[in-house]
């Protein structure tokens, strides 16, 4: 059902946890199956994401996509990170079962919300 990559990120999630006093924080709920994901980012003065963490209440794919997006986004400029799509996340995991594609949406959306939150705070 899941690729080895998905299983790897699911069983050994990277960057799970919270960042106290994060620069930005985004929470999205999943209307399809009622799951929840929060992404925390710490952004430095050059607008680079220095640290990123997640908390997820959802399936194996939701946890794996959360983990994967933190790996992808870490070290990226926030504007660059805004460009990460659900497909980028899914591709990086060697694909997701079609029924689970919405879970990668959740991750991309949570990151976007976190960056928006950061931007709204500094502007």
């Amino acid at each position: 059902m899941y690729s080895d990559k998905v299983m790897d990120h699911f069983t050994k999630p990277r960057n799970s946890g919270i960042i106290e006093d994060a620069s930005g924080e985004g929470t999205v709920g999943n209307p399809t199956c009622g799951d929840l994901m929060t992404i925390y980012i710490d952004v430095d003065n050059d607008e680079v994401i220095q640290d990123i963490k997640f908390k997820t209440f959802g399936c194996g794919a939701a946890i794996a996509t959360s983990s994967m997006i933190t790996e992808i986004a870490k070290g990226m400029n926030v504007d660059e990170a805004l460009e990460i799509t659900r497909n980028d996340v899914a591709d990086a995991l060697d694909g997701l079962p079609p029924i689970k594609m919405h879970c990668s949406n959740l991750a991309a959306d949570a990151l976007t919300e976190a960056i928006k939150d950061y931007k709204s705070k500094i502007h």
Partner: protein
Amino acid sequence: MIYMDNSATSPIKEEVFNAMIPYLKEEFGNPSTFYTLGRNAKKAVEEARENIAKLINADTKEIIFTSGGTESDNMAIKGVALKFEDKGKHIITTEIEHPAVLRTCEFLESRGFELSYLPVNENGIISTEDLKNAIREDTILISVMHANNEIGTIQPIEEVGKIAKENNILFHCDAVQSVGKIPVDVKEANIDLLSISSHKIYGPKGVGVLFIKKGLKLELLIHGGGQENGLRSGTENVPGIVGFGKAAELAYEHLDENIAKLKQLRDSLIEKILERIPESYLNGDRENRLPNNANFRFSSIEGEGLILRLDAEGINGATGSACSSKSLKASYVLSALGLEDEEIHGSLRLSLGTENNMKDVDVVVDAIAKVVGELREMSPLWDN
């Protein structure tokens, strides 16, 4: 591996396997042929029929072999509906039946039948008052399952049978989860039609039984060569039937002993989980449930992840989580208990088998405590 998903399917017992082997090898005859090889096959089928009849206190003539529980449910409900549609087009069932019953009922609705779905209380049990109130002039069938596949809750089928009889309505009972696990007596419960499946009682997959009370005539589901006394055509799955018969024989012989053993394991499992894991709850009725079923929910986590991580620990169970279903809908059975989708997300069904022992229970409790802890660590809903 510790297998605790016996309600999904159960391993074939060694005696069952050994009984099947000759019929997968040299005794491959077609029971409809009348030379020696065919007669041997026929004899084996009839022996299996006797063992199954005995298990539910029926007559051998009342036992019809099918391809499984699903076909039995379809055959019973459609068979009554099409046979008696001139008498009435109203059928009563419950909200927590297996999809084999529910989808069949919906099919009938699409063809002009009217269905009443009885609700259940927070423990998953129907009210016989509701049932009495649902009965109409044109009710032709009541279909109420014996034990639920998710929460193991046992319905008051003797009372249902009594009400059905008093009102001269046929009673179908899906006993796929109960036969072989708790006593089932079709006479005592006034059952007209009863579905059984082999692979839930340590027999092979792909074979089931529909009990049809003597004298009751149905429209057929599968027409053809006239096997099974003309009621279910198709070359008999002889090895499957033989295995089913052996499984029934074993279930009958060891019923009391298995019940005692499984209850002890189940109760210990429930006690330890509820004690050890904070915000953990039991779904379904504490007493009135199958000896082998324990269904929990853990707050703030999701079941698919739970199942996969338990799998990595070598433990098999099931969940009612939306995320693990094809439709991304939460378990309708747990919903019927009044639980919210969020609560259902963190559900875990463990269905014990006769192979399990107390050590398994302890290993499983440890693993669940660990995995639930890890998942909660990651969950935004958990803040202890």
